[in-house]
């Protein structure tokens, strides 16, 4: 499991499972640099998403992980960083 990778597709799947998608937001469009808030995910949706990523990938986020990584690109990179240092 040490070389597991976290891709945008994984994030999208987990977002949909845990919080669904906002009306009028297409997760298949170019969302890499769009703020999560703009995509319709408030703090609770991100808390749920974070919990699901932690469970599935066996990692642990710091409390400010989602405050510092506010877009899909930043979060995916952050998760991969955690996976590599695991």
């Amino acid at each position, binding site marked *: 499991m040490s070389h597991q990778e976290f891709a945008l597709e994984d994030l999208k799947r987990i977002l949909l*499972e845990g*919080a669904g998608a*906002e*009306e009028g937001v297409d997760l298949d469009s170019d969302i890499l640099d769009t703020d999560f808030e703009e995509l319709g995910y408030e703090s*609770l949706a991100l808390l749920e998403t974070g*919990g699901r990523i932690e*469970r599935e990938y066996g990692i642990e986020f710091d409390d400010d992980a989602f405050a510092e990584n506010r877009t899909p690109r930043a979060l995916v990179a952050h998760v991969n960083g955690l996976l590599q240092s695991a």
Partner: protein
Amino acid sequence: MTAKVVITGIGVATPNGLGVDDFWAATRIGKNAIGPVTRFDAAQYPSRLAGEIHSFTAEDHLPSRLIPQTDRMTRLALVAADCAFEDAGVKPGDIPEFDMGVVTASTSGGFEFGQNELKKLWSQGSQYVSAYQSFAWFYAVNSGQISIRNGMRGPSGVVVSDQAGGLDAIAQARRQIRKGSKLIFSGGFDASICPWGWVAQVAGGRMTTSDQPERAYLPFDADASGYVPGEGGALMILEDAEAARARGAANVYGEIAGYGATIDPKPGSGRESGLRRAIETALADAELAPGQIDVVFADAAGSPDLDRIEADALTAVFGPAGVPVTAPKTMTGRLYSGAAPVDVVSAVLAMREGLIPPTTNVTLAPEYDIDLVTGQARTASVRAALVIARGQGGFNSAVVVRAVD
């Protein structure tokens, strides 16, 4: 001068009908919707019948964003709210957001959601519990979700007084309109046909253990053996009558003309139940004499001791067999906070059609001196109706609904 408060929009979902048309078509002919529990395996429980809603698929009506964060009762309530807006001919943005509020009632809260998360907590660990458990189970969640979805930021809240709450919430909505709000959503929804909700009700000791859908929930019948629980409820849009007229409201179903609420004396005190006083207070508030009430929608507990109290209160206020009494909830089971709002809906639809829907399956026991409408619906001119609801713990509430010319 206190403002007249009228019902201008309805959303209803009960075991015998989704939407006003289906609900009334079923209710006016006494369509039974009580059957064996299918939402979970109830075989090992002493009570095994329920009034379930079988034809509701939340995903057909609500965005996927709302599905992971809502209990079944909230999904039903959100869809009913959409229907009520449509029925009232109002769109959420038409009225300033701080002039619209939501006051609902709740008995259980989101038990099915809560049960699933507690199950994860004990079988998998705390990290498996949904973040949405923080509010999805909560009594106020229906008010909150309706408020968020429709941008209603005026006076809002929840009333928790079991079945009586369905009327208490309507009264609170009326207060807020009299204080200046333009539009308040009110009513109640419960849907806790899950093991956790079930054991809580079984422990109350008033659920029937009958397995015969037509002989299970029999208020005022010699064979009364308790109640059958159901799921669902109704939401109504309440508005100031003048404001509704000014915007040209298409439907003005009726006026919330009177309200009374009491608490029973301590058990064993030997004092009379507060129910009669709640009825008299509602009549006085509506400035109507008992003879001006055309029909009573009874609480109809289905337990002989409680049926006795209600029949005595009705006879004391209206005289022996002095007013037609009905309990259409015999078709659906008791819907907790949803029951009385559904009865208010039935009352205004009875006015519209001139027809009192029947109490099904029941043969009136001779010991009760009331004019119970059994068997079939009864044609009648209905201008004013009394709706009664009682809640576990001694809550008694009554609302008078009056036709608007």
